[in-house]
């Protein structure tokens, strides 16, 4: 199982230039997962012990709003990374993530990775660099969303 995930992870842009040693460490924390449409990958306030590399399908990141139901603030689809709360205390999800379509993903065990990153700071640095880039992209996108640029200009 893990052997079959190695080439997939090695080719993914998120991990593609990781050293073979570090890639092995990451592969050791990986597993294949599948979610039917409508199923939650995680819920707000649950422990955040994974992140996902989406291989197929689409996941909605939602926030529950009183009287209005879930509001989707972002969708994550094939090739993209979902979740960074596993990286930072208190290791809890701040949003819900729901599969909009049947979704296949590789789940990376955050607890397992946290231990490995503590033991090997080079791996920790490599992963943090990659997540920092994702966070920067998401922050920029969020700023544009907050600007409400398509709203009434007057």
């Amino acid at each position: 199982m893990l052997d079959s995930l190695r080439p997939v992870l090695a080719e993914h842009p998120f991990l593609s230039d990781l050293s073979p040693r570090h890639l092995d460490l990451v592969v050791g924390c990986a597993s294949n997962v599948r979610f039917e449409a409508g199923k939650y990958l995680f819920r707000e306030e649950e422990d955040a012990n994974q992140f996902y590399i989406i291989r197929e399908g689409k996941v909605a990141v939602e926030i529950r709003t009183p009287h209005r139901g879930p509001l989707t603030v972002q969708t994550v689809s094939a090739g993209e990374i979902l979740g960074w709360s596993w990286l930072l205390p208190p290791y809890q999800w701040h949003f819900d993530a729901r599969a909009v379509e049947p979704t296949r993903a590789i789940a990376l065990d955050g607890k397992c990775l946290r231990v490995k990153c503590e033991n090997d700071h080079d791996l920790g640095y490599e992963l943090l660099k990659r997540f920092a880039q994702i966070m920067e992209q998401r922050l920029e996108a969020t700023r544009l969303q907050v600007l409400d640029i398509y709203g009434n200009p007057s």
Partner: protein
Amino acid sequence: MSPTNPDPMVPTPFRVQRVRQETHDTFTLELEPARGGNGFSFQAGQFNMLYVFGVGEVPISISGDPTRSKMLVHTTRAVGTVTKAMRRLKRGDILGVRGPFGSHWPVEVAAGSDVVIVAGGIGLAPLRPAMYELLSRRDQYDKVVLLYGARTPEEILFPRELERWRAHFDLEVHVTVDRAMGGWRGNVGVVTTLIQKAPFNARSTTAMVCGPEVMMRFTVMELLKRGVKTDNIHISMERNMKCAIGFCGHCQFGPVFVCKDGPVFVYGRIKDLLTKWEI
């Protein structure tokens, strides 16, 4: 170009055939020449000055099909005095039209390359004629990709047309909204996030971008990051056009006039002006 009148400052009367509500604040006008004639020819990306008699005149992009020139089609948002009056027009009412004015999308120049169209909000309206043209000569292009962002699912412009285009096997259409409630199964996120995933060959791509200026700036950044060349990126600017022929200076944008030199510009020509807030 076929001017409606030999004197570009004199409006030609057009009769309203249909007013169609597109979204809560956006509508489309279908017009025909009131005095008959051979219709109205224009190039994708050009605009007209539309005159609501007794109220005022505003520049509005043409959103119809340049290959079917019988009907003149404009889509706009009811935001000011003139456009709100325009929305109240009924079938048979008369409107003054001057135009077409300005530069156009490089639909012909793009032949032989991939084409990526990035539209935001009502920015899809001035790009729709380019889509019609691209589709009318589809075999001349490699990949054709349309990326469209709207505020919410309810504010998506031309949803039926987008669905039809999405059904084309030789067209990639990706729509995203800034936010949505649970029933929406499409993408959520700003349109710029679609660019890195979109299937086009950046080295051989012509990009046409229209939307709010902030959206265009960030879109261009993403296109450049993908490797699209500066001179292959075209954006449509909006400024306060009045005379539409470069005399009055209302739409002056640094050394250029948006009405005459634009509204469609090669990005390289105006990139240094886009961050000069004083203009």
